[in-house]
């Protein structure tokens, strides 16, 4: 011990007992974290910049972090051509309805399954949890959805499967667990029924849980493209935002021929720019909202990692 103290004095000079390794760690920390954080944003900046660059500049100079010449050409094209606004309304609708219905069901289930006096809690918990252990796979699911439920080209095929997941129910159970059991007990003594206890005593205490799980649900709906790609064929005119984006990116040529050609001469169609403008419009809302809801997101990850 004396030895280490001696070293400390030797290395730091005389008066201030500053640990040199701490300095090193701090510098490495700042440099590394800054570098990594920059890596996380730069691709987004490039997309943003591309969306404000005209096609001719993209073709000649390439994609830049800061646009060489600022233009709204791409956005004008998007507004004129694609039915992205209908997609917006559809996606907002799906997100709002799905989040509220999902939250309602998840919170009721999470509460009931956390009640110690509920005799079926273990068997129902297992019934729900088992679905994440073993699944039939895509092919049987696809056949069931299209041939038994006849949900092909139906928005319900997008809305319903995202309503809940075993993980979200476990997350809710973990949040409910933190509410003292005495609350339910005192409600019972006062003669309140289970529904009353849930609605007027438990729900108000679950506000952070509702925010967190609502956030996960809303992000799930907003970013949805998978169910759409499976079940919404070309017969459906308006598709959720992310899948519309997917189709635009993968079929820009089709867009060029069908719609854009009527307004602009072929040479200065900003295909890359249009793709990126669509990407910005489809992602923008979530990027703008998310710094304000970040804390709920963090609490969700930490609460959800431990099992219920």
């Amino acid at each position, binding site marked *: 011990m004396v030895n*280490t103290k001696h070293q400390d004095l030797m290395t730091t000079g005389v008066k201030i007992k500053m640990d040199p*390794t701490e300095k*090193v*760690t701090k510098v490495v920390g*700042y440099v590394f*974290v800054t570098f*990594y*954080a*920059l*890596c*996380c944003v730069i*691709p987004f900046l*490039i*997309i943003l910049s591309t969306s404000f660059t005209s096609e001719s500049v993209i*073709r000649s*100079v*390439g994609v830049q972090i800061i646009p060489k010449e600022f233009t709204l050409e791409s956005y004008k094209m998007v507004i004129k051509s694609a039915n992205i606004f209908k997609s917006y309304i559809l996606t907002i609708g799906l997100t709002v309805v799905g989040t509220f219905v999902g939250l309602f*069901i*998840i919170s009721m*289930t999470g*509460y*009931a399954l956390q009640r110690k006096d509920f005799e*079926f809690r273990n068997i129902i918990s297992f*019934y*729900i949890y088992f*679905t994440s252990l073993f699944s*039939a*796979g*895509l*092919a*049987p*699911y696809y*056949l*069931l959805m299209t041939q038994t*439920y006849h949900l092909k080209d139906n928005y319900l095929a997008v809305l319903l*499967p995202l*309503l*809940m997941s075993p993980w979200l129910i476990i997350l809710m159970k973990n949040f409910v667990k933190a509410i003292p059991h005495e609350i339910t007990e005192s409600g019972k003594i006062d003669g309140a*029924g*289970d529904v009353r206890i*849930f609605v007027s005593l438990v729900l108000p205490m679950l506000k952070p849980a509702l925010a967190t799980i609502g956030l996960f649900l809303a*992000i799930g709906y*907003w970013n949805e493209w998978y169910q759409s*790609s*499976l079940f919404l064929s070309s017969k459906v005119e308006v598709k959720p935002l*992310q*899948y519309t*984006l997917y189709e635009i*990116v993968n079929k820009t040529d089709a867009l060029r021929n069908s719609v854009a050609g009527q307004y602009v001469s072929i040479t200065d169609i900003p295909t*890359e720019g249009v793709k*990126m403008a669509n990407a910005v419009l*489809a992602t923008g809302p*979530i*990027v703008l909202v*998310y*710094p304000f809801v*970040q804390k709920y997101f*963090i609490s969700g990850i*930490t609460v959800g*990692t431990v099992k219920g």
Partner: protein
Amino acid sequence: MKRSNDNQGFLKKLSRSKVLLLMCTPAILFFFLFSYMPLPGIWVAFVKYNYRDGIFGSKFVGLSNFEFLISSGKLVELTINTILYNLCFIILGNLLAVLVAILLNEIRSRMFKKVSQTLMFLPYFVSQVLIGILVFNMLNYDTGFVNNMLGSLGLELWEPYSDPNVWPPILILVYLWQNTGYNSVVYFAAIMGIDAGIIEAAKVDGANCFHKIWHIVLPGLKPTIVILLLFALGGIVKGNFGLFYNIIGTNSLLFPTTDIIETYVYRAVTADFNFSTASAVGLYQSLIGFVIVMAVNFTVKKIEPDYSLF
């Protein structure tokens, strides 16, 4: 006699908890409709499916769908690809996440911490479709950012979209880029949970910052690391479909190094309508996954009973 007693007991239980049962009904119905109802359809893996006769009317062919997959080597190739990618994702992902969490913890400025965390989460929040676009925007031959830089430096241009060998590292990088912010949260929380008194005491005893990280923080994180690694291993045969499909898509040139179980099954269902093969692969994946999760849970139960899944 005993039996009727049991029945009465059950009915009593039922009526006692009918409100709570009712509260669970929508969820029970949901999982029945979307998770249990598809199970009988697994039968399609054992028939030669045709649309007219349906799953249960089509001709039974036993295990021949599996035989084809095994003899063609497809199943082995897909399994190896899926597992190797996941191993890299899990090991490198957790290493980087621990590193970020430890470094972030050493930084005192709260403002810096908050802003950098916000930026690091950003990739996790956006859709996989956008991730695919981002990668294309960086790497495509004609207008991509990377080639743009290479070109302005007078270097030879890079054409990754026709070279299958470059994609494993690219996909791993993209995965790390997208998930490290998210993964580091749990580790960061675990570091915060380490008793500050121990760290103070060590400092008094002359421990420097490296000692602190090596002898206090890392051992403090060990249980979290072990548990997260084990759980991740439980999902080792489940591929990250969104990542692969949106970046590679239908570019069959790249399939030898990038085709995983999920992408193969997806194409079999949506492009080839080969439901029997798709289901055979899916069933194989589900069974292996199930066995692995069971093994993992058994292990976790031995190490840390509190964390076991069931």
